[in-house]
């Protein structure tokens, strides 16, 4: 069974940091995502805002013709933005897994009740 995600023809990293933005320290970063849109952006932003050590989190799609998404994270002193991003992904993964389990259980219960 192959992966659900289509292969990336262009190669290279899908995640990079916006040039020239690293001068203000580890706590401010703008991440550039290739081939991503509101589906991932809005979810990540929600997860980031639930983290009390994140002071600012926002995402934007600079131009609809380009498949690029920018995610800006600003955190408190001493907490690197990259840790916040990684935590947001981990939280999103947990949240989505729980949702999937709840859904599958609900379908099983529904089908049992039907028969």
């Amino acid at each position, binding site marked *: 069974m192959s*992966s659900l995600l*289509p292969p990336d*023809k262009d190669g290279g*990293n899908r995640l990079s940091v916006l040039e020239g933005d690293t001068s203000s320290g580890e706590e401010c970063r703008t991440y550039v995502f290739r081939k991503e849109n509101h589906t991932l952006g809005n979810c990540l932003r929600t997860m980031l*805002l639930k983290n009390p050590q*994140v002071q600012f989190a926002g995402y934007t799609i600079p131009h609809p013709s380009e498949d690029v998404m920018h995610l800006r994270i600003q955190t408190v002193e001493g907490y690197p933005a990259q840790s916040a991003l990684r935590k947001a992904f981990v939280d999103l993964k947990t949240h989505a897994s729980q949702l999937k389990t709840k859904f599958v259980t609900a379908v099983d219960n529904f089908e049992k009740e039907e028969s």
Partner: protein
Amino acid sequence: MTEFSFSSKNKLTLKEFEIVNTSNYDFSGHFADPHKQENELKVEIVKIEDDGMFLEFDMIGYDPSVANAVRRLLLSDVPTMAIEKVHIYQNTSIMQDEVLAHRMGLIPLKADPRLFKWKEEGTEDEGTEDDTLQFSLQVRCKHNPDKSSGDPYLDNKVFTKHLKWIPKGSQKDKLINPGPVEDDILINKLRPGHEMDMKLFAVKGVGRDHAKFSPVATAFYRLHPEIRINRDVFDESAIRLVKCFTPGVMQLEPTEDGRKKAKVLDARNDMCSRNVFRHEDLKDAVTLEKRKDHFIFNVESTGAIKSTELVPMAIDVLLEKCELYINEIDSQSKE
């Protein structure tokens, strides 16, 4: 008697000329519920019809970004099989080659995309047994020699049932009938002398690339409506009030003194037409609201995969994306 509504923050109100309280209050530092308790988040199945192809379910307590992500993933990121390359050897019909090829691409196929690999760019159209499905369409229209039957032509309408699957390699052992979902989709109309002879190659793709690869007829959600009666309405006004809403939402119930009072039966099916605002005397009698964290999803599959399997697949795509980016972050931080 005043009524306190503690849950007012998670409802948006539909007024006559505006909708209020729509924003989500998500900015940093606002911690009404940093991480909702797991038992407050619920998923309930309401209806499964049509052999699993139609599904209605509720997501309660979730953030709109997650509900929207599920909807967007269902539409554009869950893979399906669809015809991509068409080799036309003969087409003397009236329909142009390119229009015909476009139509072939839109035909929904029953093949399960999870059994196939992604086809690499630049490889030849014929493909391998792991990544391509081949079909053939050969139809020729003739005069009907049987003059007595009503139909003067034979094979003048080309349907999807004329598509023949050409199994490659060991596909005949692994796949059972990966043809079109419906047999009676009209592809083309011919007259005597017209002929169509084509080879069709189907591959795996996602809706982002082309809408023909979308596995859902559509997937959408709406918020659960709520109707609150502010003051009792009787008799003739009550009949008018009940008529303002979708049938089945409001009902007349008899009171002790023989009058009829309007009562909310089940606000779920209301289509939020806000018709009540057309009646000056009934405008203030009800408050129309929607619950911001209760999403009523409708998922209708095109036929390849059941809707009850599509939703977990959509969430799997999200999980794979998270995995991909976590790995990239980890490998980048090692450098």
